[in-house]
């Protein structure tokens, strides 16, 4: 992960500040930086979203393609995650430097979405055992400014909300061979229900307290952090501990409670902005990358 070096005195200043609930940029321990969310930025995808959280910039594209269902789940479609840490974000990601972080993030997302209730995979099925929709979720890290997982999860939820999968009909011939017919109307599509899609909240332990949405400087001061994925109803779908340091079981419970609370507010804020963007419809001015 991209990191900054800090002197001991700077780290001490940050740690003491957090004890008193005043971070370097004036936020409290449970405040997020101002986030900018925009969907439908990439035209040749089924759905896309771009999220800017402080200095962290993430672009997610979702492509829906036809595939065969997995053997153990013949009447469901599935999601495939791929994370690309581009060298734009930091020089450490040049060449194959970003691969390790990319696979770690992708594996985390497989776990987060492994719960059956997060996304209705049965709606992605076209023909049991033969055809289904596979959603390829590609994440591109444009800039690393701390708190990657949260920003990526927000972007993934926004992109899935924005995804439009074309409606298909299966026609059967006399011999029994099936044909798939795509509807002629390009606006005739199915949308995914993202109400139960979880968002990740990263809680970094700094000193005796924990903070949400740590910047790069704060991440340099924290030895251990807890990643939890929370749905909009407050249910936890997965939990992961990161970092070299250790966490007290007491503090894990506290962090889980904080994460749940913050996660619910995060979902409310995100859904509000997505609905607002949706209501603007075609009159919305797309800002994109050259705004």
């Amino acid at each position: 992960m991209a990191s900054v070096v800090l002197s001991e005195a700077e780290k001490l200043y940050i740690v003491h500040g957090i004890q008193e609930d005043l971070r370097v940029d004036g936020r409290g321990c449970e405040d997020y930086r101002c986030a900018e969310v925009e969907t439908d930025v990439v035209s040749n995808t089924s759905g896309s979203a771009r999220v800017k959280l402080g200095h962290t910039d993430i672009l997610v594209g979702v492509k829906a393609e036809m595939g065969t269902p997995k053997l153990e789940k013949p009447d469901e479609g599935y999601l495939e995650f791929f994370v690309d840490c581009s060298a734009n974000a930091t020089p450490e990601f040049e060449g194959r430097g970003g691969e390790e972080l990319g696979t770690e993030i992708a594996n985390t997302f497989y776990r987060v979405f492994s719960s059956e209730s997060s996304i209705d995979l049965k709606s992605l099925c076209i023909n049991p055992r033969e055809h289904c929709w596979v959603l390829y979720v590609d994440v591109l890290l444009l800039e690393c400014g701390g708190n990657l997982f949260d920003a990526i999860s927000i972007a993934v939820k926004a992109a899935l909300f924005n995804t439009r999968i074309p409606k298909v009909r299966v026609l059967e011939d006399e011999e029994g061979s099936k044909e798939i017919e795509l509807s002629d109307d390009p606006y005739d599509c199915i949308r995914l229900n993202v109400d139960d899609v979880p968002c990740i909240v990263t809680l970094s332990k700094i000193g005796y307290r924990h903070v949400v949405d740590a910047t790069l400087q704060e991440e340099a001061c924290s030895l251990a952090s807890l990643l939890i994925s929370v749905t909009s109803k407050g249910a936890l779908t997965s939990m992961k501990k990161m970092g070299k340091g250790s966490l007290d079981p007491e503090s894990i419970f506290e962090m889980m409670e904080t994460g749940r609370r913050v996660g619910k507010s995060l979902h409310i804020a995100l859904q509000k902005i997505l609905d607002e963007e949706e209501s603007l419809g075609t009159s919305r001015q797309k800002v994109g990358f050259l705004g």
Partner: protein
Amino acid sequence: MAAITMRLPVARKAMGPSAPRGGEKHLVAPGDTITTDTGYMRGHGTYVDEEKLIASVAGAVERVNKLVCVKALKTRYNGEVGDIVVGRITEVQQKRWKVETNSRLDSVLLLSSMNLPGGELRRRSAEDELAMRDYLQEADLISAEVQSVFSDGALSLHTRSLKYGKLGQGVLVQVSPSFVKRQKTHFHDLPCGASVILGNNGFIWIYPTPEQKDEEAGGFTTSLEPVPLSDREVISRLRNCIVALVTQKLMLFDTSILYCYEASLPHQIKDILKPEVMEEIVLETRQRLLDLEG
């Protein structure tokens, strides 16, 4: 109580030119022709191609009699003798430290250019060389002055005054060097309760004003006591104001920072970074600065 705000992105508005003083600025991009007149000498940021003077960086053209140069807006720090810089130690080598100052090459701080504790003046011995890491380690921050520039462009720094040396607790803000206005002094004790060092290399250091003014420490002993909450609020507010000024492309100097601080007082510290609040504060600052001049 968690506070999460999300918003839709807004296209950047082209800001109207602020009152042009001394005529409109001639802005160029790399490859633009500045002039076809061959009577001019070419300065930094330009090159000659087929009798035309062409810009090699993006910025504003400056003309001093016959010398034409282009001052880039976003660039690495180009050091000059006498500049104050704030730097971070990257390496400890034999008899010198390598300091990162946001320039093209790491700057050099020689052991002989460093003040020994107690202010003693003597020749540096082998013990001093072995004890280098006790004075400055990797990742430490220092304030120093540029002593000279090597032929390859690397800077040689010195801390031969009691006001320079290792920096203690505080906040570092990194901006582009072109935002820091050249002034007589870069060490400011702001009346709001914090002090700031405006490094010419774009590193701005905000720290709590030390109470006693006795100087024999010379910057070697860093206080590890927790900074009181009131000072922290001032420092955080100043940090956000500086970020706001830089985002809105205003020059940084003590008066602009102070006016911005005063304009931000009605808002909460964390709200200063919201785009609409930022615009409002910086507009007020700009207005006050214009009133000050006019």
